[in-house]
């Protein structure tokens, strides 16, 4: 009975190892375009996983998560472009700004619940979008900020590793995303992450048990923004520009769909959802103009046949197999 989860852990570790090895080998197989696509998939995977902390674990569906992605991207982009800050300064500054924005928005948004929370996060993110769009002297308005430089990593001992090439940048992103993902996993399996699941299931009970629910939600809100901001910073370095689209509600909706499509509350699910949507958007459109239609049909089909998301289907299948297995052993 007790060994079973451990076996599962071993399998998961094995899978993760294979995945990481495969990812490490990727630049030797893929052309620069597909490598770029892989970078994009990783960045959006992190973005979606950060939202999963809210949606899947704490049960707080946010429709304004792009705000933190965008605020961080603008901060990093502006500091790199205007003040020439290097990655070691500009990137943490972007993440910090995302955290501060989330702390401020969280104070307002956490007064609401459910659909109202969905909507107030939307409204707040649109306010942030309005600032990015309207404050032309700082943000460049509609056209955004082009020509953000791809950084060089200035390591100790005067080593400098230019990230201009796509392979070098790929490895940079791979390392960054891996570290961020490990941290997220750690958070999710910590007592804190466990308490978030409790809050998702029943806030009233958590209060009655003595949990300071607001504090947990607030920290989760800020943490989710930190990881979203980190993804946004990577994205600005990858694309080398920022525009108000980064924090538009359409992007928030997109990342929420990634989470649901892959399976909320599983962490791996949203990453899969992100990969699927990025792939679909880029591959279908090469063949047909009707990619919106196809994406829409995919959403409807997943909702109908995998209401708990793509990974949800897999988990249910495995659970049913284990049950059958146990039954067979018993008989």
């Amino acid at each position, binding site marked *: 009975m007790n060994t079973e989860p451990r076996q599962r852990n071993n399998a998961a570790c094995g899978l993760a190892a294979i995945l990481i090895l495969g990812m490490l080998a990727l630049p030797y197989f893929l052309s620069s*375009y597909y490598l770029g696509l892989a970078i994009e998939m990783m960045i959006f995977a992190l973005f979606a996983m950060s939202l999963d902390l809210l949606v899947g674990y704490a049960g707080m569906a946010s429709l304004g998560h792009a705000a933190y992605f965008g605020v961080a991207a603008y901060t990093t982009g502006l500091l790199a472009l205007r003040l020439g800050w290097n990655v070691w300064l500009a990137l943490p500054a972007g993440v910090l700004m995302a955290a501060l924005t989330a702390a401020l928005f969280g104070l307002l948004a956490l007064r609401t619940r459910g659909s109202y929370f969905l909507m107030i996060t939307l409204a707040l993110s649109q306010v942030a979008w309005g600032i990015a769009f309207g404050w032309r002297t700082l943000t460049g308005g509609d056209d955004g900020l082009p020509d953000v430089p791809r950084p060089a990593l200035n390591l100790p001992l005067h080593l400098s590793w230019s990230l201009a090439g796509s392979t070098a940048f790929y490895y940079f992103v791979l390392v960054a995303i891996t570290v961020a993902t490990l941290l997220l996993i750690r958070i999710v399996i910590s007592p804190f992450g466990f308490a978030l699941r409790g809050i998702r299931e029943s806030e009233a009970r958590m209060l009655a048990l003595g949990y300071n629910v607001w504090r947990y939600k607030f920290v989760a809100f800020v943490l989710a923004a930190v990881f979203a901001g980190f993804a946004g910073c990577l994205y600005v370095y990858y*694309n080398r520009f920022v525009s108000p689209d980064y924090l538009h509600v359409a992007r928030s909706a997109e990342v929420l769909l990634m989470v649901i499509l892959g399976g909320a509350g599983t962490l791996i699910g949203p990453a899969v959802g992100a990969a699927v949507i990025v792939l679909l958007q880029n591959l279908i459109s*090469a063949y047909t103009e009707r990619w919106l239609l196809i994406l829409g049909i995919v959403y409807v089909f997943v909702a109908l046949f995998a209401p708990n998301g793509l990974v949800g289907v897999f988990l249910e299948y495995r659970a049913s197999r284990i049950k059958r297995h146990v039954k067979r052993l018993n008989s």
Partner: protein
Amino acid sequence: MRHFSIIALLALGALGASMQPALSQEPIKIGVMFPLTGPLASQGVPERDAIKQAFDEVHDVVAGRKIELIYEDSAAKPDIGLTKTKALVERDNVNLLLSELVSSVGAAMAPYVAEHKIPWISTVALASLTRAQKSPYIFRFVPSSYQYALVAANSGKKLGWKKVYFIGWNAPPARESYQVVKKIFGAENVVDAMFPNVGTTDYAPYLTKMDAQPADGIFAAMWGADAPRIVEQWAEYGLNKKMPIFGIASFTSEELLTDMPPQAVGVRSAYTYCGTLDTPENKKFVDEFKAQHNNAMPGSYMYMGYMAAKMVIAALKDINGKVEDKDAFIDALSKVHVKGPMGEASFDEHHGMVANFYELTVEKGADGHLQNHCGQLIPQVRDPYAMFP
């Protein structure tokens, strides 16, 4: 589990192998990206079609080499547009790009294109493409905002306007147009300048504000669905009886006229295309386009797509199809002169468009539909670099 990983690695390998760059000999690949979905698809789709039309005329063969057009949808979003441009360049290995009309997408593309040294004939009216973001590989076959706004402002001045309003999109092309109007009329003579967002549905508050303090006329710098909408509401609020509109750039483009109310008769603009111009080249262009588009008239966007393609074809002919020699192609393109529906067009020393403009007035055609009356020709208009650096 082990089996799975081996298969996965094999699959990855196969995927990689199939993605090696193809030997570039046979067809000339041209990447054509426009917004094909969303609000700006109303310009993006027909402009792409007009590009195709130009290549159809030569049966997709130039200097003995087949032309292959590869289409992508930018969705009018800069990051999507950039990713799609990368797909065209790095996946499809296109020889050149003939793309886009959205300024934010253009701004995001420019550094990438310059860095990867891919010739790009841009149909984005972004002044910076031949200024701050200038590159030998970027050509702009569309007037810059300064270029078209200057023609419009001068034409307005000629009408005897003294005091004017300016209303335009909260976006760079309209902002830059406002700079021009301010310069020509003097800041004190612009009663008010208003910048509603792209896609604003209700212009009533702005119109009522103008109504409260009339001026000689209104300069309007918004396009797509927003142009007929403001004209509709301008007429609704009776402003058509008080202040005429002078549309900047493609404000009265033919495809937008079908959605304008009858009161649009008399609305002026000054731009590079006039659908009713009686030249054999224009007749051919219009007839062909109408035949393929359910009898719809082509407008200025389609004209520019069509002509940009013709410029490319001419330059390719000049270098005998050897598009792999980028420097030769760029050189040929910068020197090419093509006689098209509106007369001759070429590129200036910064790779900006040089072409004929016409003063246009909306009128009722013989069939009862609205059309543009081709007024005064303003020949070979150049981008005013010196005046607006």
